[in-house]
């Protein structure tokens, strides 16, 4: 699989006068773990629903795996696993029965392999022992795992996950992250929408940021958090360090100095040569949070139509 996996052009959804999604151009490529970020109410969920043919766009086009949605939904969506705004299942039925019904409800899930696939995905998400129990008795974390199992049931080429670690404890979050990275290694493209920046920063290779229905940023995570060309120095003698480096010091904050220069070794040599003790030395990189906040503040004064 290669090329573009999700492409939207001028995608817009208006509810009356309110534009929930206002002309966004998503570009998710094969092999990406795409982090779709945005505050609550920024239009993430509406976008995800348009990708899956649940909400019909007011304007613009959606292509998933190279085919138009919702027109080719029946051919495309069997190859897409989705977790949309929290899991949902039939309470009186067991986890296994729920997965079986979901698999039988659409095309692309062979009846012959169903039992084996269900057992496999339950094992994969850590519910191997809970499949026979009624979902009514599941904890929120177990329901989330079951939802993920449903998304994985047909070995999808693309996973669309809305807040996949919602309701999980720290160990659970870690497990799911490892599972997603594992799936990614075996060729699955993953589209994760979340408002948890730290989670995306640990997972994503590409990031898109939505702000009030508009796409304000879309780039590789490595590019966004690339070194800024400055080095962060920690020293017990900041005054002496500042004298040695002169106007190369961009900012200083207690024992922490930001110094112009993208070669920490060179900065270190200069300081140590002048007898300044250096306790920490690192290339400056912006965090994803800084990048996102910077991108989103530009429109902070906008008043929604």
């Amino acid at each position, binding site marked *: 699989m290669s090329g573009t996996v999700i492409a939207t052009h001028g995608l817009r959804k208006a509810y009356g006068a309110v534009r929930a999604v206002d002309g966004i151009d998503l570009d998710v490529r094969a092999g990406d773990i795409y982090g779709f970020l945005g505050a609550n109410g920024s239009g993430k969920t509406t976008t995800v*629903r348009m990708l*899956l*043919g*649940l*909400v*019909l766009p007011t304007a613009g086009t959606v292509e998933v795996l190279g085919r138009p949605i919702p027109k080719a*939904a*029946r051919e495309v*969506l*069997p190859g*897409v696993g*989705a977790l*949309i*705004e*929290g*899991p*949902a*299942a*039939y*309470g*009186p*039925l067991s986890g296994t*029965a729920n997965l079986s*019904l*979901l698999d*039988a*409800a*659409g*095309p692309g899930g062979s009846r012959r392999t169903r039992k084996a696939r269900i057992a496999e995905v339950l094992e994969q998400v850590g519910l191997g022992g809970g499949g026979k129990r009624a979902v009514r008795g599941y904890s929120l974390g177990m329901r989330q795992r079951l939802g993920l199992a*449903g998304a994985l049931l047909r070995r999808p080429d693309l996973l669309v996950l809305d807040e996949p670690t919602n309701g999980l404890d720290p160990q659970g979050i870690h497990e799911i992250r490892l599972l997603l990275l594992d799936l990614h290694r075996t060729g699955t493209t993953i589209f994760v929408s979340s408002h948890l920046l730290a989670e995306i920063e640990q997972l994503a290779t590409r990031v898109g940021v939505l702000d009030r229905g508009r796409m304000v940023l879309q780039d590789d995570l490595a590019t966004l958090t690339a070194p800024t060309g400055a080095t962060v120095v920690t020293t017990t003698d900041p005054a002496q360090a500042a004298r040695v480096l002169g106007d190369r010091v961009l900012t200083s904050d207690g024992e922490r100095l930001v110094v112009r220069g993208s070669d920490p070794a060179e900065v270190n040599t200069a300081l140590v040569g002048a007898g300044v003790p250096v306790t920490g030395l690192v290339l400056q990189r912006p965090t994803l949070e800084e990048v996102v906040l910077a991108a989103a503040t530009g429109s902070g004064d906008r008043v929604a139509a």
Partner: protein
Amino acid sequence: MIAVELRKLFRRPRTWITIALLNSLPVLVAVLLKVTDLAPRPGEGPAFLSAVLTNGTLFPLAALAIVLPLFLPIAVAVVAGDSVAGEAQGGTLRYLLARPAGRTRLLVAKLVAIVVFVLVTVVIVAAVGYVVGTALFEVQSLGATTAVSGTSLTPEQVAGRTLLSIGYVTISMLGVAAFAMFFSTLTDSPQLATLGALAVLIGSSLLFTLDAASDIAPYLPTRYWLSFVDFFRDPIQWRNVARGLGLQAVYVVVLLGAAWANFTTKDITS
């Protein structure tokens, strides 16, 4: 997809509890009749009830007549009202449609499941009625059953006409199902859809008793519900039965068309 809907419906405890409750009223009536020996006079009370003391094989029809005005439509409205709105409320609708089940396919599968539910329910009411009726009351095994119009029917004729009645009652319930299903595509609350359908029926029953509404009476959905009694006249009077079938067909086609048009174009935000 149809198999999926049937599995969901009949693996659900609620479905069987509904059917069990539905049967409790005719059974209670039978026991009371047996204990007190006080049958309503002919022409009073639910149809056929006056005759069951002397012929238990008519009790399936009495049972249908007992549940038809209220219990059966409530059960149908609950199941049909839950069909789409229940999935929306539970959040499973978005997963079914993203699977993708296909909106038209899902609606058709739901409809078939409802029809099967109605048929199974009516057959069970008749079967329980038969068991209770023949166990508690006399059975005229050799003699003939007296038809509503006074002539005699053989046991085979009674059996055949009982089957016709089961079919007619089932079709009569499809109008209710169509109302509830249409409402079910309009709202994400199954209770609201069910109550909407029941409001239509209560309104229809009320207007039916009103002389001022006599001009629209032939078009009320509940107008011909009890016409299955006509199967037990000799000869069978088909006029009202045929009108009843035609009227239900119109309601079903129009309402399901509206349900389809609404459901296939709506945004699923549940």
